[in-house]
């Protein structure tokens, strides 16, 4: 089985977020980058599927050379080879176009990625890739097993789960508990050194969305502590001061 896992290179979840250039650019100074946590689940499951029934796992990232340490980590976790499409991932459509363009003739049985990135949280790329390739796209997939050419999966839906069965190939947007994150081991890190990381030029594609400006949420206000016995006071404040009831 040939699996493609698309990974994002995103600020660590604890990174302090700020902007430059009149709030039009993300300030990456001192920010540590990681594999998108949802992508990391997808990758972990892909490696498990490969270990269970053979095949290959290729990781793909649309990004500049700065993302290579993140790609190397994916190789250390167990991907066999990697592709970096050398472009700034400006919007979901642009990224989806790059992925689809690479995947259309590459013969993947399964394309996995996170349900969403954790920088812009668009959650659209898997759907767009599906549309561009004419394949089903399912998200968020929280359980995935493959038997022959058939996949059995569980998808989270409002208030419950949906169990699905479908034929390969398709696109899966993944989330926990599809697998546990894998910590690369030292042997994996060593062998990642010599695994192939191919850099491809981006295909012609335009962005569908242009970013105008960022804005941070307003700073948290002061906290007022109200005695547990004093419910009347709480109601009064919620009504008159917070104006929420």
């Amino acid at each position, binding site marked *: 089985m040939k699996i493609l896992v698309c990974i994002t290179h995103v600020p660590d979840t604890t990174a302090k977020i700020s902007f430059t250039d009149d709030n039009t650019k993300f300030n990456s100074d001192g920010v540590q980058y990681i594999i998108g946590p949802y992508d990391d689940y997808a990758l972990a499951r892909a490696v498990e599927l490969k270990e269970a029934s053979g095949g290959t796992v290729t990781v793909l990232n649309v990004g500049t050379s700065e993302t290579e340490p993140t790609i*190397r980590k994916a190789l*250390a976790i167990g991907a066999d080879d990697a592709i970096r499409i050398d472009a700034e991932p400006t919007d979901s459509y642009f990224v989806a176009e790059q992925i689809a363009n690479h995947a259309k003739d590459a013969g993947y049985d399964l394309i996995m990625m996170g349900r969403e990135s954790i920088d812009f949280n668009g959650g659209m790329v898997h759907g767009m890739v599906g549309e561009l390739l004419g394949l089903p796209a399912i998200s968020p997939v929280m359980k995935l097993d493959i038997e022959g050419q058939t996949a059995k999966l569980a998808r989270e839906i409002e208030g419950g789960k949906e169990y699905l069965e479908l034929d390969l190939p398709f696109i899966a947007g993944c989330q926990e508990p599809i697998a546990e994150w894998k*910590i690369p*081991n*030292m042997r994996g*890190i*060593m062998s990642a050194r010599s695994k192939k990381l191919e850099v491809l030029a981006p295909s012609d594609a335009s962005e569908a969305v242009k970013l105008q400006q960022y804005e941070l949420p307003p700073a948290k206000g002061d906290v007022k502590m109200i005695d547990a016995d004093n419910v009347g006071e709480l109601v009064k404040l919620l009504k008159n001061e917070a104006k929420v009831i």
Partner: protein
Amino acid sequence: MNNQSTDRFESPDFYVLDGLLTEEHKLIRQSIRDFVKKEISPNIEEWAQKAHFPYEIVKKFGEVGAFGPTIPQEYGGGGLDYISYGIIMQEIERGDSGMRSTASVQGSLVMYPIYAFGNEAQRKKYLPKLASGEWLGSFGLTEPDHGSNPSGMTTNFKDKGDHYLLNGAKMWISNSPKCDVAVVWAKDETGRIHGLIVERGMEGFTTPETHGKWSLRASTTGELVFDNVKVPKENLLEGKSGLGAPMKCLDSARFGIAWGAIGAAMDCYDSARRYSLERIQFGKPIASFQLTQKKLSEMLTEITKSQLLNYRLAQLMEEGKATTPQISMAKRNAVEMALNIAREARQIHGGMGITGDYPMMRHMANLESVVTYEGTHDIHLLILGKEITGIAAFE
């Protein structure tokens, strides 16, 4: 749930040492840090309080590659450089010195001599199983009556034609109660020291546990007792003999300790920094008082100095140029620094600092072993003294 079960550790890097590390070094550090946060931090307090050695950690260390990172990959090792080895020890000891001891004994004191002084058959037989954690090893040099002076050892073996007959006892041996193999240093009939690989199950070989330790409580320590043990001749390490052989192993382990102790110091510093910002007295965080700031500033200064010393030592190790006195300096410096920081950091935590909700008391008690084993603090001082003056003051 105590504070340590949610591990919020952030490492200080005041002189941007990261700028000297490769992306691979940083990935190694992050991986081992994640491993420690997942496998060690949530449990270590309980293990230490109960003096429980979590045997299952041995396999997990094997899986992540903490055993013998510098041993070539063909023998199951990591094939990594000394900076990587140092980083791995630092991150594990950030979790706990006892856990780091388990790993450094296995890597530097068991796998290293088999790799460096063993023949091909021995390497093939033992190293992959030790690397994967299928087997646990121990290193027997110290004896009840010979600690700082190992050359006085009385453990000995006689050539009986088709085997060696080993007699004697070793004491204070890390991993001993659970070890599958032991690299044992003993004198032949001429009084020359050799290394022998002794395996569990050999008749007359026992490993009684040492109880009642107040230090390295999550690591298991015991004796190695040899009562007419028949050791096959193929278990002799032929590559090197004399006291220099075990000393060479200690060089590698002490290097790991020098890095490891910084991990313990960083953990204490980081906890103190955070606590001082959160703890309010006299209406403000205790971090606003000059005396707290003095403590924190001095801690960061000492950690930074030790980091730079260790980094340079790793380069020298990598080039094969590091000398024993240089390693002595680094081990001694780092452990003393860590002990001082553990004490100061504990003070910053006030009464809370004496509980298991915070790591300082555990690190502090652990470091009392670390300052003693692998050459005591004073012996390292005297090794430096000899280097400077040419006169040995310890004989």
